[in-house]
């Protein structure tokens, strides 16, 4: 798997298939990047479950916070990692244990060995990308801000539907 660049169809396939996302490192502070991403993904119909041992007992955007992936009481399709790269191996072990189908690491987060471990367990991996930006890019919304989506199409439909 080439983790330098991803096919649009690979990313779109993930975003179309997952419903429930556990966000590891979700922050209750409204002006933190993870909060932006969680709010955006909720608005696109994803259920986002925050995981953060330091915020247990709180709710973020209406969802109670869990201390670890093993404590999340519902099936998780995708784990979104808002942690430093060195925390990834532990998160991947937890993701395998709960049967997650995708591990997605945020911009700046990358751990190749942990990615290989996840892929060996049948998990799809995305590294150093943001699901908000990728959803926006493939739905056309990122272009509203003047960004190059890299997408050329003569079709009316988009790869993911906003």
């Amino acid at each position, binding site marked *: 798997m080439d983790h330098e660049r991803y096919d649009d169809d690979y990313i779109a396939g993930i975003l179309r298939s997952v419903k429930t996302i556990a966000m590891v490192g979700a922050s209750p502070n409204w002006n933190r990047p993870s909060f932006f991403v969680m*709010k955006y993904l909720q608005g696109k119909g994803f259920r986002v479950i925050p995981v953060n041992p330091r915020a247990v007992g709180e709710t973020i955007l209406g969802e109670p916070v869990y201390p670890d992936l093993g404590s999340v009481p519902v099936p998780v399709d995708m784990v979104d990692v808002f942690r430093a790269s060195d925390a990834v191996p532990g998160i991947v072990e937890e993701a395998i244990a709960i049967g997650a189908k995708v591990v997605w690491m945020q911009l700046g987060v990358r751990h190749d060995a942990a990615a290989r471990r996840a892929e060996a367990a049948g998990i799809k991996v995305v590294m150093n990308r943001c699901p908000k*930006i990728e959803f926006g890019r493939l739905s056309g919304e990122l272009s509203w801000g*003047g960004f190059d*989506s*890299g997408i*050329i199409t003569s079709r009316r439909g988009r790869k993911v539907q906003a």
Partner: protein
Amino acid sequence: MSDKPKYGFETRSVHAGAAPDPTTGARAVPIYQTTAYVFDDADHAASLFNLQTYGYIYSRLTNPTVAALEERVASLEGGRGATGCASGHAAQMLAFFALMEPGDEFLAARQLYGGSINQFGRTFAKFGWTVHFVDVDDPENFRRAMTPKCKAIFVESLANPGGVVTDLEAISAIAREAGIPLIVDNTLATPYLCQPFRWGADIIVHSTTKFLSGHGNSMGGMMVDSGRFDWTKSGRYPSLSEPEPAYHGLRFHETFGDLALTVHGHALGLRDLGAAMAPLNAFLTLTGSETLALRMERHVANAQKVAAFLEAHPRVSWVSYAGLKSSPYHALAAKYLPRGAGSVFTFGVKGGYDAGVKVVESCELFSHLANLGDTRSLIIHPASTTHRQLSNEQRTAAGAGADVVRLSIGIESVDDIVADLDQALAKSAAAA
């Protein structure tokens, strides 16, 4: 993440940013002639004002037609994103607004469009920003002039009006060493002829009024961000790295990563400076940009022939066109402008100021006006017009001395262009 583009330049010129409208299927980009956009509810409005979601609020900040053009120019330049604005001067203002604080300094080539020399030297001084102009011909001049307060280097890839080609790779190395971004005005070259991001530029600005639009019918500007500069590392770009009070303490670079400068350009630059691009102008510029490659090919082919004609003309004392072997910039042009040295250049007419004026006034095909990058051939005498506000020394330094005539060669039949200059030069003999 500046991946190599999947599609070629000409394909992107036609299609980038311009997928069919998802709602109506409209194939051309619609002109969204609206000032504002309805919110779904109060929470949606809050998300938009907090910059938490993508969407439109008010056309001073963003507009769908302008956004299509922004994406197109970003794609053509190989940038991450772009901020469209009212003019090239507005684009320069947006770039420096994000980088500079009162008391800061920057370096700029002294070989610049006269309007930029005025903007940097006089108007920017009112914001407490100090420019140091240096001779671009020796890149080491930038190293010598560097001060601890310098926040950027600004150059034109192909300088107006003098046919000067800038050594972008050497200057970007000096900028990188100093930990500051290189801003390149790529207006005269266009991304078809020159790709400054490949040579280490961090920000590109355009007057889209010129070749990108190409038909002399719409004002516009563009600030394009490569997305590669680390705004947080040095702590010297607080507008991008520190909590922004206008957005409740949000840090632009931390929150938006490589999108930060473009978000800043819209959410602060356009919001507070107000120089938005009109949707109709964006539409006309989108249409013009579709033929950029075709037009530039003809522009440079015609310019090459006209320059060669002038060089052999007895009434002409010199021609400054980097496409000529006689030009000191010929080698730099081969490196940075391999498809041609643009179509704007200057020549000296024998007889000085009066002869220069006479040539300009005698043309019947060339239009005497203060623009360039039009399908039409244009002519101007900089000393009596665009560079009039400068001192004699500044005019000479900028390549706009008394005998200088500037041409912007159009895409008419080249024989007609040559014939018009020939008869005008003949008439100038009487004035000499």
